[in-house]
C-alpha cells in the first residue's frame, strides 16, 4: 500500500483559537496555585464537571484528570508517577489516578511551606506535581467507573481521613425495563431525581464547609454561561459535517477545558464563539482540519495525552481526518438543552448521567451510530486505554455494531491516557494502515458498482 506510506511534512491544521485555550488553562491553574495565598478553599474532585457547584461557593477546584493530563502534556508527570509507585500503587491502575495520587504523596512529603509557589515557577522547576495546593475538601461524583470513586476514597485515606469528603453516587444507565431509552424511561427518570437529591445535599454540605449560604443565583449565572458554551461547541462540532471537515477530534479534545474545568463565565462563551466563527470561515474557504481529507474517521475511547500532537499529525499524514469521537461528542454539556438555568440541578444531573462512559452498551451504540451517520464516517479507530477499563469496556460491542450495521472497518489500538509506556507505535501504524486499506477497497467496490 505505497500510497499510504506517511508523506513527510503533512501536519494537522489546528484551529487557531486553540491558542486562546492555552492561555485560559494557564490562567486557571495560576488561580489554583494562588488559592491559599488568597484565602480560598480548594476542592479536589474527578470525573464529571461538577465545578460549577464549587465556583458558585467561591471555592477553587483541582480536577484530577485535568491535572494529570496537564502534567503529561507538559512532561511533568514522572515524579508523581514514581512517588505513587513507591507507595505501592501498581502500574495497571488508572494512570490518571496514579499520577494524581502521586501528587498527593508528593504534597505530603513536601510539607506546607512549598505550597505557595507560583504556577510558572513550579512549571519552570519541573515541580508542578508536588506544588499543587493540598485539598481542603473532596467531592466524589464519578459516573460508571468504580475506579473513579475509589480514587477519591484513596486520596481521602492518603490525607489521613482528616479532610472532609462528600460522595455522590451516580447510577449507571443500564436499562432493565422495556421503556429504557436515551434520556428517558422510568429508570432514567428515577436516576435523575436521585442525582438531584444528592447534588442538593452536596450544596448544603458545601455551605457548611464555607460557612456561607449557598449562592444559587451565582450557580444560575455560571450555568447560563456553561449552557451557552455547550451549545456553541455542539453547533461548531456539527458544522464539521462539511467536507473537508474544518476541524478534527484532536481540536475538540484540546478544546475541552472550557467545558470541563475552566470557570463558567464570559471567557468560555467567547472562546466557543470564536471557535465557531473560525469553523464557519474555514468552511467558506474550503479549508480542512488536515491538509488533504481522503478518509473520515471516528475515534472511540479516551484521549492519549502524551501523544495528542503526535497522533493528530500522524492521521493528517495519512490524509485521514478524525472527524468525531465518543469522548468529545458524547459528553461535556452536549445535552445543553436540558439545562434550565433558573433551576439547573436537573439539567446538570442529565449531563452527568449521559457522559461518554455512563450509558450501557446498547444505548451508547445507538448514539455512536447516529454520530457516524451524521459525519459520514468511513472507519472507526478504537483506542483501548490500557488503564481505563471504563472506556475500554464496550469497545468490542461497538466495533461489532459499526462493522455489522454500517459496514465500517475498524482499527483497535492500544495506548493509555498518561502512561506513555503502554503506547506501541508500530502496532498503531499497522492497524491503522490495514483499516485505511479496507476503506480503499470499499471505495473501489463502491465506484465499480
Amino acid at each position, binding site marked *: 500500500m505505497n500510497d499510504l506510506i506517511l508523506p513527510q511534512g503533512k501536519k494537522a491544521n489546528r484551529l487557531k483559537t486553540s491558542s486562546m485555550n492555552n492561555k485560559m488553562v494557564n490562567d486557571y491553574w495560576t488561580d489554583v496555585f494562588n488559592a491559599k495565598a488568597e484565602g480560598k478553599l480548594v476542592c479536589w474532585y474527578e470525573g464529571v464537571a461538577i465545578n460549577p457547584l464549587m465556583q458558585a461557593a467561591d471555592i477553587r477546584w483541582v480536577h484530577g484528570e485535568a491535572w494529570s493530563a496537564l502534567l503529561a502534556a507538559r512532561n511533568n508527570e514522572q515524579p508523581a508517577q514514581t512517588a505513587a509507585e513507591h507507595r*505501592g500503587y501498581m502500574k495497571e491502575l*488508572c494512570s490518571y489516578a496514579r499520577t494524581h495520587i502521586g501528587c498527593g504523596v508528593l504534597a505530603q512529603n513536601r510539607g506546607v511551606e512549598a505550597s505557595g509557589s507560583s504556577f510558572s515557577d513550579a512549571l519552570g522547576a519541573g515541580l508542578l506535581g508536588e506544588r499543587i495546593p493540598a485539598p481542603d475538601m473532596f467531592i466524589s461524583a464519578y459516573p460508571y467507573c468504580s475506579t473513579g470513586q475509589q480514587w477519591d476514597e484513596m486520596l481521602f485515606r492518603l490525607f489521613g481521613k482528616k479532610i472532609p469528603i462528600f460522595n455522590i453516587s451516580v447510577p449507571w444507565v443500564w436499562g432493565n425495563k422495556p421503556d429504557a431509552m436515551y434520556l428517558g424511561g422510568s429508570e432514567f427518570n428515577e436516576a435523575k431525581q436521585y442525582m438531584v437529591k444528592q447534588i442538593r445535599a452536596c450544596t448544603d454540605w458545601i455551605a457548611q464547609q464555607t460557612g456561607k449560604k449557598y449562592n444559587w443565583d451565582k450557580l444560575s449565572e455560571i450555568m447560563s454561561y456553561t449552557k451557552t458554551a455547550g451549545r456553541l461547541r455542539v453547533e461548531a462540532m456539527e458544522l464539521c459535517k462539511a467536507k473537508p471537515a474544518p476541524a478534527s477530534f484532536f481540536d475538540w479534545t484540546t478544546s475541552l477545558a472550557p467545558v470541563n474545568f475552566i470557570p463558567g463565565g464570559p471567557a468560555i462563551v467567547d472562546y466557543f464563539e470564536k471557535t465557531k466563527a473560525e469553523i464557519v470561515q474555514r468552511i467558506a474557504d474550503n479549508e480542512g482540519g488536515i491538509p488533504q481529507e481522503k478518509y473520515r474517521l471516528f475515534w472511540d475511547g479516551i484521549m492519549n495525552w502524551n501523544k495528542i500532537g503526535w497522533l493528530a499529525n500522524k492521521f493528517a499524514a495519512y490524509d485521514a481526518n478524525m472527524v468525531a469521537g465518543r469522548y468529545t461528542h458524547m459528553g461535556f454539556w452536549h445535552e445543553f438543552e436540558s439545562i434550565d438555568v433558573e433551576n439547573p440541578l436537573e439539567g446538570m444531573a442529565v449531563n452527568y448521567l449521559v457522559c461518554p462512559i455512563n450509558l450501557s452498551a446498547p444505548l451508547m451504540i445507538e448514539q455512536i451510530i447516529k454520530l457516524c451517520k451524521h459525519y459520514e464516517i468511513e472507519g472507526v479507530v478504537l483506542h483501548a486505554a490500557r488503564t481505563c477499563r471504563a472506556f475500554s469496556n464496550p469497545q468490542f460491542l461497538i466495533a461489532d455494531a459499526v462493522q455489522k450495521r454500517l459496514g465500517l472497518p475498524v482499527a483497535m489500538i492500544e495506548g493509555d491516557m498518561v502512561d506513555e509506556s503502554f503506547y506501541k507505535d508500530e502496532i498503531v501504524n499497522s492497524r491503522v494502515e490495514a483499516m485505511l486499506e479496507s476503506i480503499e477497497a470499499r471505495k473501489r467496490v463502491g465506484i465499480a458498482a
Partner: protein
Amino acid sequence: MSIESILGTLEWTAENSLAAASQWKQASGRRIVGSFPMHFPGEMAHAAGCTPVILQESHEPITVGHGMIYPFYCGFTRSIVDQACKGDYDFLDAIMFGDHCVQVLGAADVVRAKLPNTRVHFYQLISSMSDPWSLGRARETFLNLKEGLEEMIGHSIDDEAMRASIRLFNRNRQMLRKLYEMRRAGDARLTARQMQILVKSSMIMDKAEHNRLLEELLAEFDKTRATAQRGVRVYLSGHFCQAPKTGVLDMIEECGGIVVDDDLYHGQRFISTDVDDSIDPLDALAKWYLERNLKVPCPTRVDQNADWENYLLDAMERSRADGMIVLMAKFCEPHMYYYPEIKEAFEKRGVPHLLIETEHELNSFEALRTRVETFLEVVKRQTAARRIAA
C-alpha cells in the same frame, strides 16, 4: 457419610458449578438465577422459588472470549465473558447482579449481548456505605430487585417466604462460621482447599441440601479429636470475585504454612454476616448489606467507618496468625488501590506479609514456591525471636 465423602460431594459441586446447577434445575424444576459476586442477596431469589447460583471463574482456558474482552482484565471477568460466548449460561433463567466494579460492568454488557433471551438485570447497590442515604438507597434497590423477581415468577413474594429463606441462609452461614471457629481453635483439621470447597459449594448448591451436608459434617467433626498441627500460622487475604486456585493453597501448606483464617470472598467474607429475621425483610437486607462491610471491609466499597488494614491486623491477632499472605488477582483494581494502605499499616506494625499475584492462566505454582518458603522461614524466625523476647 464420612467427612471425606461429604467433602467429595461438595468438591464436585464446587468444581463443576454449572453442571451441578443444571442437574439441580432438571431434578427440582426450579428456576436458576445466576449472579455476579460479591453482594447479591441470594435469599431473595430463593424466596422467589428460584435457586441462586453465584457465577464462578471457570478453569477452562479463555478462547472465544478473547474476541469480546481485552486481555488486561481480571481472570474472573474474562472467564465470565468467555463462558457467556461459549453458551455455558444458556440454561440460566436470569442473571441478576448489583455490584459495580468497573470490570464486572464491562463483562455484564457483553453477557447481555450474548444472551438476548435471558433477563440480565442490574440492580445497582450503592457502594458508598456511610452516607446519610446509604441505608435507604440499599433498601430501594432491594425493593427493585424484589419487583424484578416478582415480575419473572408472575406473583408476589410474601414476607414470610423471605424470612424463611433468610433463616435458611443464616443457618448455612452459622454452620460455616462454626467450622471456621473449629479450625482456628484447632478442633477441626481443615485445609485451605477444603475450606474453599465448603464455602464455594454453598454459592452453588441448594441451601437446604448444603445445610444437611454441613450438619452431618459438624456431627462427624464432633466425634473426632483433631491432633495438633505444627507449622507457621498463616492468614490469607484478598482474592475477591474469584476463588484462588486450589493449587496455590496447597502449595502454601506444602511449604509449611497452616492456614488458620482468611478474609477471602470464597471464605469468611461470604459468610461473615447474618440477616435479621425479626424485622421487615427489606429493612433487614439493607442493614445486612451495610453491616457486612463493617464486619469484613470490602475494598470495592467506600466506607468512612471501615478500615480494611486495621481489620486485618485485628483479625490476625484474633486468629493468632504469624504472617499474612495476600492473594491478589492480576488486574484487580479495587485490590491494587487498597494494597498500599495495607502494606503501610503492616510495615508500621512490623507484621510480615507476602503479596502473591495470581492469574487465570497460571496453573503451576512452582515458581512461587521459593518465595513462599522464604517468607515462611522469615516469619518462623521472627515468631521465635518474639517468643524468646517475651
